[in-house]
């Protein structure tokens, strides 16, 4: 970016990039400019360049230690939230126990992208077939069970691979955060990109889920699970929570 040459877009819009990254626009102006840079490459480029400096500005403030009582207050609220959420999950778990009718039981809450309903149905049939084989104990022979690495404390995951298809079994997983869902990814090489699948799911109240991995896993090196916004992502937004090494 040249200092001497003002960056102005074709419609003369270049002046708001600096106040935008400094937080110096009004709320209304900020929202309008945020919409504008979605379609203006010139402003978007300028914002990206200036944002690097603006993001460094906090370091220019005298560095202080946060008061210990502030941490006590914050963590007290956080733990209270977590306890409340845990007790809600427990209540939901009891409600879904056999014999209780207040809520339909769901052993695995698979959710699929709506526009892929037909493909999803086909995959679900495959998944159900794999579940049936495994639970019947007759899968033996060609079924390989792989223990997955799990980032979440207390949780576990294993992958059953049979005839080129795989099924993930999870236990002890936390409920998805509001507005989020778990997503299954495939990786074909160690350095390759994680490829999204249509397997989006939540876990049952007890943290369990059984998920069929869509398609064949022939040539797949790793199967991963991440937490993503509802509807899933095309690129993982964060590192994987679960990684199962297939080959």
């Amino acid at each position, binding site marked *: 970016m040249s200092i001497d040459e003002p960056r102005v877009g074709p419609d003369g819009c270049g002046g708001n990039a600096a106040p935008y990254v400094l937080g110096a626009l009004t709320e209304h102006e900020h929202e309008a400019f945020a919409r504008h840079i979605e379609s203006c490459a010139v402003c978007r480029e300028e914002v990206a360049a200036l944002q690097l400096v603006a993001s460094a*500005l906090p370091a220019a403030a005298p560095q202080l*230690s946060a008061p210990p009582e502030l941490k006590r207050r914050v963590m007290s609220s956080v733990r209270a939230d977590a306890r409340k959420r845990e007790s809600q999950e427990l209540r939901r778990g009891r409600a879904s126990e056999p014999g209780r009718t207040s809520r339909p039981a769901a052993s695995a809450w698979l959710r699929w992208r709506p526009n892929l309903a037909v493909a999803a149905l086909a995959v679900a049939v495959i998944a159900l077939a794999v579940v049936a084989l495994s639970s019947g104990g007759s899968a033996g022979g060609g079924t390989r069970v792989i223990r997955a690495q799990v980032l979440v404390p207390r949780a576990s995951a294993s992958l059953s691979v049979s005839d080129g298809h795989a099924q993930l079994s999870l236990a002890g997983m936390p409920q998805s955060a509001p*507005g989020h869902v778990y997503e299954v990814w495939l990786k074909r090489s160690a350095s390759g990109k994680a490829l999204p699948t249509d397997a989006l799911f939540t876990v049952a109240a007890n943290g369990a889920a059984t998920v069929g991995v869509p398609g064949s896993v022939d040539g797949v090196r790793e199967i991963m699970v991440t937490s993503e916004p509802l509807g899933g992502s095309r690129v993982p937004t964060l590192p994987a929570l679960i990684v199962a090494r297939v080959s």
Partner: protein
Amino acid sequence: MPMFKPLRSGREGSAAGLGVLADEELMQLVYTGQPAAFEAIYDRHADAAFSLAYRMCGQRALAEDVVQEAFLSLWRSGARYDRARGSVRTWVLGVVHNRAIDALRRRTVHDRGRISDEGIEERLAAPERTDVEFARRDEAREIRDALEQLPDEQSRVIELAYFGGLTHVQIASMLDAPVGTIKGRMRLGLAKMRMALGDPTEVLP
């Protein structure tokens, strides 16, 4: 090669036990409702968050409120961290900055006397303990130098905007200068800082 070390220590991971994880990995755990992971994130970034909030608000109580609001909003809202947009630290400080701006703009003109808590800088000065903290201190010095080396008119508008929470219109009114001039000074100042800092990629994670 595994992407991370499996962690299954005890019924719930402790903040200390989670210390080996990167911020991004911790954020995955935060989204699954793990207080210990959130505590680890808090421990890593609370000092920087409080420093920024105090620099902006000038009052300890208000700065504490801002930091508390910011961290609890991260925990409760499920606000999404996107690593494509920068480090977790940058993201956290961005949320703190926005909260502090809201707090400052909520205050009436009558409240806007910047009464600093006397001596707070000495009482709460962050100690330099680790290599990372030393590196951050060096980085902070470079950034302060870059800001101070700007012409006064440029550093002033940047400070009034970023740390003072003022809009470009308010700054123009305060300095009795056209809005376009104020915007130009902001842009020139930031561009010069960028060159002085050697095109910084980001603050240290």
